């Protein structure tokens, strides 16, 4: 299990439940490495600012993480973490390697708009 304060998707089943129960989902699939940790930290900060988004992580090396590793949208990715954004269960964006807070919020604002500010 990843040592973060995020909700963990520990299995394929939990992953699909997040998608079923939440309209907007951001899942970061990685390890406790230097390119992944900054992304987890940004996600932890954004949990309060984006209450309409479900933030979760998933350990890259567990077999069930194939639900992310094998996504067509992640083909060609060769840098951790793989971050996948889902709307109504469908992938709307996927990124590879470290991303800044600004890059992440731009994706969230673009894909997970609400009637309010976000």
């Amino acid at each position, binding site marked *: 299990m990843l*040592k973060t304060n995020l909700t963990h998707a520990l299995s394929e089943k939990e992953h699909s439940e997040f998608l079923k129960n939440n309209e907007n989902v951001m899942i970061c699939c990685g390890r406790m490495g*230097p390119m*992944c940790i900054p992304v987890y*930290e940004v996600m932890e900060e954004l949990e309060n600012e984006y209450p309409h988004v479900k933030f979760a992580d998933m350990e890259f090396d567990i077999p069930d993480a194939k639900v992310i590793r094998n996504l067509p949208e992640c083909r*060609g990715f*060769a840098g951790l973490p793989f971050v996948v954004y889902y709307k109504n269960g469908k992938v709307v964006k996927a990124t590879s390697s470290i991303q800044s807070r600004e890059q992440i919020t731009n994706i969230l604002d673009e894909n997970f708009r609400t009637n309010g500010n976000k």
Partner: protein
Amino acid sequence: MSMQNHFDVIVIGAGAAGLTAGIYLSRAKVSSLILNEGAIGGQMVLTHEIANYPGIEKISGYELARNMKAQAQKFGCVIKSNIKITELELDGEIKRVVVNNKDVYTSHAVIIATGGKSRTVGVPGEDEFKGKGISYCATCDGDFFQDKEIIVVGGGNTALEEAVSLTKYASRVTIVHQFNHFQALEHYVLEAENNSKINFIMESKIIEFAGDKKLKRVKILHQPKQEITEMEIDGVFVFIGYVPNTEKLEGKVDLNNWKEIIVDKNMGTNVSGVFAAGDSIAKRYRQVTTAVADGTIAALSALEYVNTIKKEKVTV
């Protein structure tokens, strides 16, 4: 200006130096704010395992950073991370920092602990193929290149050490280096030279990354002949050192030729009330322990400065 936005000391940066300064200042009951543009921990979190931090047998850089952050917050230090500093005024008795173009913070003293970042190649295609063939971390991404052909860019200790470690995965590793000799210590060079999977392209630079959805080839300039060749490649790992994060300080504090902040033995810069610590200052050895020492000295100096200013105000 609300009093909530005024602090005795503002620390810029939350790596080992900045967090240590925050611990010392807040424990001394001096109001302190740490503003950090990236993630907490700075270069510390790049280290998978730290085994030479006195008193701790071994710990991950991430955990050490988290502990330091919690310690500073426990003493009352306010930490804001992943922000963007959009204005910085260091002259004058009251220092002023604007965050995200809207929030204004002021203080009597500032400690700059902005650290450093990995140097990038800085050529077309680098941003596009980051994570899709270009990597800056062998331990993170090495296993994506099982039985693949890769390039390692650089000629220092890290480049040669990581080139050898990447031969665990890659079928072939080509080191591309801009000079005709290596800066790395001899044993790193020998180890690389004796590895049958490693070959070398010297006096050369990558000038372009290309591909479609992932990196497929690079253009390499051989500098003495000014010849450009194209090479099919699966991945490129870049290890060409670090640069100090001092772009926003140019013209505000004295920097040396390498853009490092010049400090005195008390970590004071040439500007009154402005101190600096950690990897962004001019110094030879960059370790977590030296950053912690710098941060301690800078905090104690800032503390003395703030107390003097406050006393002067009372006596005037």
